[in-house]
C-alpha cells in the first residue's frame, strides 16, 4: 500500500504528462485535475506513517541495496514533499489562468510542469547517488524548458545560459559519483557512510559533488545564472524555480553532508560553506537593492535567502537544523507568492519596471497586498514563518556564542527590509502616483487569489510551528549519531 502511494507521487505526474501529449485539447484540463488532486491525499497517509515509524524504505524492483536502488522516505523528505505539492497546486492555479490547458501554450507548458513535479518527487525519495543525478537532471531540464516557454529573447538567452552551466555542474557531480563508486562499491546514500573512509579520494569526490550541486543551487559566488533565469521566466515558473527547484539541490547537499559524511569532522569546510552563505546574504541583498525591475529584485532576493540555508553547516545543531528547514518552507511559500504577484503585475502592465509601478495599490490591490504580506515574511518580521526561522537561527547562534553569525542574521533581515520596502514605497506611495501608464489588463482573479493564499500560508506558518518543528526534529541526523 505504502509502496503504491510513493509510486503514485512519482508516476501519476509522469502519466499525466504523457496523456496531455496524446489526448485531445478539451480533455487536458480534466487530466491535469485528475493527476494533481490526488497528490495531497497520497501524502496524508504517508504523514501518519512517518509520524509513527519515522522512516520508510523500499527496494525498487525487489533488489536490495548494494545492487538495487532504494527509495527512502523520512521526515525531511516528507516536509519538502508537502511544500512541493502545495506549491504545485497553488502556483498551478495561478499558471492555469496564464497557460490555458486547452491552448497551444498550454500544450507546451503543462507536460513540462508535471515532469518537473515528478522529478522533484523522485529526487526527494531517492536514496541512491546515481538515481539522484538522474532525477536532478530531469528537474533541471524541465525547469529550463519552462523558462523557455516565456518565449522572449531574454528568457531564451537565460535558459541557454542556465542549460550550459547546469550541464557542467552535472558533469562535476557525475565525476564525483564515479569516484565514490570506485572507492566504496555502493552508491546508496545511507550505506556510504560506513563504506567510505575519509581520505584524499573520498574528499575529492565530495568536493566535486558539492561543487556541482552548489552551481545548481546558485549559492554565491556561483549564482550568476539565477537572476536572469528567474527574472525572465513567466511568473508561475519563476515561483517554482525559486521556491523549490534551487532548494532540492541544497537538499542533496544536506543529505551528503549530514548523512553520508555525517561522522566526519569537517569544521573548516563547514565554516567555508557558511561564509559562502553569508556572502550570498550580503551580496544578493545589495544587488536586490539596486535593481530596476520588480522580478529582478525578487530574483536577487532568492540569491540572498538561499544563503541562510548554508548557515546550518557552521552552526550544525538541532536548533539550526530546525531553523534551516523552517526557513526553507517559509521562504518557499513567501517567494512563490512574490513571484506570482510580480508575474500578475507584469502581465497587467506589460512592464515590471519599478518606476512604472507607481499608484499600483489602487489598481491591483490584491496583488500589492500579496506583495506586502510575502515581504513581511521574507524580512523575518513577526508574526510570520520567516520570523520563526530567523528566531531559531538567532537562538542557535546564541547557544554557540556565535556572535558574528547573530550579527549577520540581524543584518540580513535589515537588508531584506531595505530592498522590499523600496519596492513597496515605489508601488504604493510614489509621488507621481497619478501618472498612470496607459495599459492595464486586470489579471485573472484566480491568479491573484492563488498568490494571496501562498502569502497567507507564509504568514500562517508563524502560528503553526509545532508540527513542522516536530518533523524536523525527527529528521535531524545528529540524533542518530552520538
Amino acid at each position, binding site marked *: 500500500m505504502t509502496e503504491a502511494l510513493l509510486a503514485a507521487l512519482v508516476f501519476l505526474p509522469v502519466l499525466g504528462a504523457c496523456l496531455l501529449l496524446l489526448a485531445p485539447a478539451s480533455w487536458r484540463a480534466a487530466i491535469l485535475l485528475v493527476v494533481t488532486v490526488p497528490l495531497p491525499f497520497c501524502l496524508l497517509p504517508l504523514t501518519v506513517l512517518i509520524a509513527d515509524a519515522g522512516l520508510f524504505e523500499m527496494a525498487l524492483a525487489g533488489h536490495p541495496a548494494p545492487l538495487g536502488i532504494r527509495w527512502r522516505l523520512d521526515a525531511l523528505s516528507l516536509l519538502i514533499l508537502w511544500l512541493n505539492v502545495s506549491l504545485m497546486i497553488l502556483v498551478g492555479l495561478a499558471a492555469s489562468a496564464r497557460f490555458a490547458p486547452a491552448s497551444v501554450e498550454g500544450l507546451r507548458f503543462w507536460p513540462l510542469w508535471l515532469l518537473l513535479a515528478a522529478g522533484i518527487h523522485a529526487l526527494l525519495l531517492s536514496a541512491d547517488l546515481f538515481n539522484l543525478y538522474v532525477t536532478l537532471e530531469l528537474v533541471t531540464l524541465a525547469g529550463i524548458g519552462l523558462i523557455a516557454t516565456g518565449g522572449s529573447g531574454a528568457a531564451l538567452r537565460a535558459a541557454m545560459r542556465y542549460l550550459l552551466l547546469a550541464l557542467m555542474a552535472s558533469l562535476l557531480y557525475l565525476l564525483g559519483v564515479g569516484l565514490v563508486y570506485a572507492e566504496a562499491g555502493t552508491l546508496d546514500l545511507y550505506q556510504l557512510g560506513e563504506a567510505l573512509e575519509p581520505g584524499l579520494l573520498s574528499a575529492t569526490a565530495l568536493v566535486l559533488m558539492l561543487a556541482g550541486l552548489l552551481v545548481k543551487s546558485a549559492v554565491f559566488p556561483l549564482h550568476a545564472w539565477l537572476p536572469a533565469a528567474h527574472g525572465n521566466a513567466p511568473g508561475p515558473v519563476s515561483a517554482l524555480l525559486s521556491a523549490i527547484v534551487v532548494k532540492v539541490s541544497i537538499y542533496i547537499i544536506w543529505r551528503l553532508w549530514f548523512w553520508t559524511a555525517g561522522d566526519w569532522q569537517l569544521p573548516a569546510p563547514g565554516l567555508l560553506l557558511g561564509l559562502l552563505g553569508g556572502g550570498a546574504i550580503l551580496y544578493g541583498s545589495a544587488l536586490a537593492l539596486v535593481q530596476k525591475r520588480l522580478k529582478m529584485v525578487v530574483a536577487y532576493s532568492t540569491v540572498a535567502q538561499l544563503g541562510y540555508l548554508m548557515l546550518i553547516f557552521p552552526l550544525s545543531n538541532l536548533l539550526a537544523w530546525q531553523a534551516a528547514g523552517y526557513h526553507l518552507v517559509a521562504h518557499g511559500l513567501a517567494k512563490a507568492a512574490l513571484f506570482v504577484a510580480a508575474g500578475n503585475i507584469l502581465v497587467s502592465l506589460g512592464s515590471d519596471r519599478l518606476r512604472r509601478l507607481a499608484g499600483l495599490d489602487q489598481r491591483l490591490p490584491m496583488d500589492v497586498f500579496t506583495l506586502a504580506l510575502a515581504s513581511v515574511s521574507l524580512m523575518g518580521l513577526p508574526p510570520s514563518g520567516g520570523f520563526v526561522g530567523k528566531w531559531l537561527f538567532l537562538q542557535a547562534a546564541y547557544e554557540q556564542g556565535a556572535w558574528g553569525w547573530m550579527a549577520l542574521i540581524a543584518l540580513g*533581515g535589515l537588508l531584506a527590509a531595505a530592498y522590499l520596502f523600496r519596492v513597496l514605497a515605489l508601488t504604493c506611495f510614489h509621488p507621481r502616483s497619478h501618472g498612470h501608464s496607459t495599459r492595464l489588463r486586470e489579471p485573472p482573479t484566480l491568479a491573484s487569489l492563488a498568490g494571496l493564499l501562498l502569502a497567507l500560508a507564509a504568514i500562517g506558518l508563524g502560528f503553526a510551528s509545532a508540527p513542522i518543528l516536530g518533523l524536523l526534529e525527527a529528521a535531524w541526523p545528529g540524533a542518530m549519531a552520538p
Partner: protein
Amino acid sequence: MMDQLMFWLPLVTVLVSAVAGIVIFVAGERHQRLRTWLNIAAALLKLLLVGLIGLLVMAGNVPEFRVALLPGLDLVLRADGLSLLFATLSALLWLVTTIYAIAYLEHSPNRARFFGFFSLCVTSTMGIAMAGNLLTFFIFYELLTLTTWPLVVHTGSAAAIASGRTYLRYTLTGSALFLIGLIWLYGLTGGQDFIAGGSLADLDLNQNWSLKIIFWLLVIGMGVKAALVPLHRWLPLAMVAPAPVSALLHAVAVVKAGAFGLVRLIEDVFGPSLVADLGLGLPLAVLASITIVYGSVLALYQDDIKKRLAFSTVSQVSYITLGVAIGGPVATIGGLIHLVHQGLMKITLFFCAGIFANFLGVKKIEQLDGIGRRLPWTSASFTVGALGMIGLPPISGFISKWYLGAGAVAVGQHWVIGVLVASTLLNAAYFLPLLKRIWLQPPPEQWPAEHRISRLESAAMVGSSITTATVAVAVGLLAGFPLSPLSWVTGIVTEYFP
C-alpha cells in the same frame, strides 16, 4: 463559561480593530458610509470591551490568552493594571481621533488605505498594551512599525517618502538590536512573563555584564520609538503625515509604545531593585534628562507649528522614562501618570494644529496672529494643552511634574529638580509666544488659505479637541478621586514597591 471569557477576551479586544481594518481594505474606496460607521462602531466596541476587562480586573480576575508560538515560547495577552491603563488610554483616544480623522480627511484620496492601516495601528497598540511577555511585546511592536509606515508616507510626496525611509531606518535597526537582546535574555532565562517587580530579580543569575548589555540593547530598541536623544531624528521628519496621524503617533501609538516598553522593561522584566543594583537607573535618567532639555531647546527654534509640537513630544515623553529610571514609588507614579497626561494634552495640541491648517491654512507660528478671534474654541483648547504642558495647575501636567520632583527628592536625586525647572521654563518659552500671538495680536486681513468646511465636519474636529482638552483638565482636577488615573497608577505602583 467564565474561564472561556477570561481566555478569549484579551484576544478579541485586540483583534476588533484588525477585523474592522481588513473589512475597510476589502470594501475599498467607494463605500464611504460603511467605512465611517464601521470605524466608529469598532472604536466604541473596543472601548466597551476594555471597560469590561476593567471591571473584571477590579473584581480580582486576570484575563489571559495564551498560545504557544514555538515550543516554550508563548504569545501571551494579559490584562493587568498597567496594561489596562494604556489600553483605556488608547481605546479612548482612538475613538476621538477616528471621529476627528473622518472629518479631517473628508475630501482627500486613498481613505480606505488610510483607515485600514489606522485600525491595524490601533490593533498593534492594543497588543502592546496587553502583551504579557517580552516576545509578545516585540511582535506587536514590530507590527506597529509596519502599520504606521504607510500612515507616515500617506501623502506620497517626495518629503513623505524620504521621512518614511528615515523612520524605517531608525525603527528597524532598533528592532534588530531589540531582537538580539531578546534572544540573549531568553537564552539566559527562558521565556519569562512580565511580573510586577521583575522576573529577573529572583533568578540570581550572576551574569551582571550580560544583563547590563541586554538592558541597553533593549533600551535602544524601545528608545528609538520613545525618541530618546540621539535616536529621535525620525520624529520631527514624520510630521509630514496628516494631522490625525501625528496626533495618534505622538499621543498613543508609536512614541508612547516606546515609553510604555521602557516602563515594562524596568518594572516588570528587570524589576526596580535589580535596575538599581546594576546601576542602570542613573545613566538612563541622565539620558532622559538630556532628551528633555535638548528637545525643548530645539523646539524653540522651530517656526512650523507641528515641528515645534514634535520637539515638544521628544522632550515630554522622556518624563515617563525619567520617572521610572529615577526609581522609588513617588517618581514612578509621576512617570506612569505622565503616560496618560501627556497623551491627552499632546493629542489636543495636534488636533488644534490640524484645525488651524485645515480651516485657514495656518501652518507657521507667525501666521497664528489673532486666530483666537477667528476660532475661539479651538484656540481655547490649544491654550489648555499648552498651559498643561508648561505644568500650570490644575491642568494634569502639573501633577506629573509634582510627583516627579517629589519622587526625585525622596530618593535623593536633587539634580532632577533642576532639570524640571529648566524644562518648565523652556516649555513656557516656546509655548507662551504662541498663546500671545493667538489671543493678543490683531488678526490679518487675509488668512493664508481659507477652506470651506461643512458644519458637521467642523463640529466633529473642534468637538474632538474640546473633548480631549476637557478630559485633560478633568483628570487634573479630579486626581484625588478613586478611579482617576492618579489613583489607578498609585494602585499599580504599590505592587512594584510593596
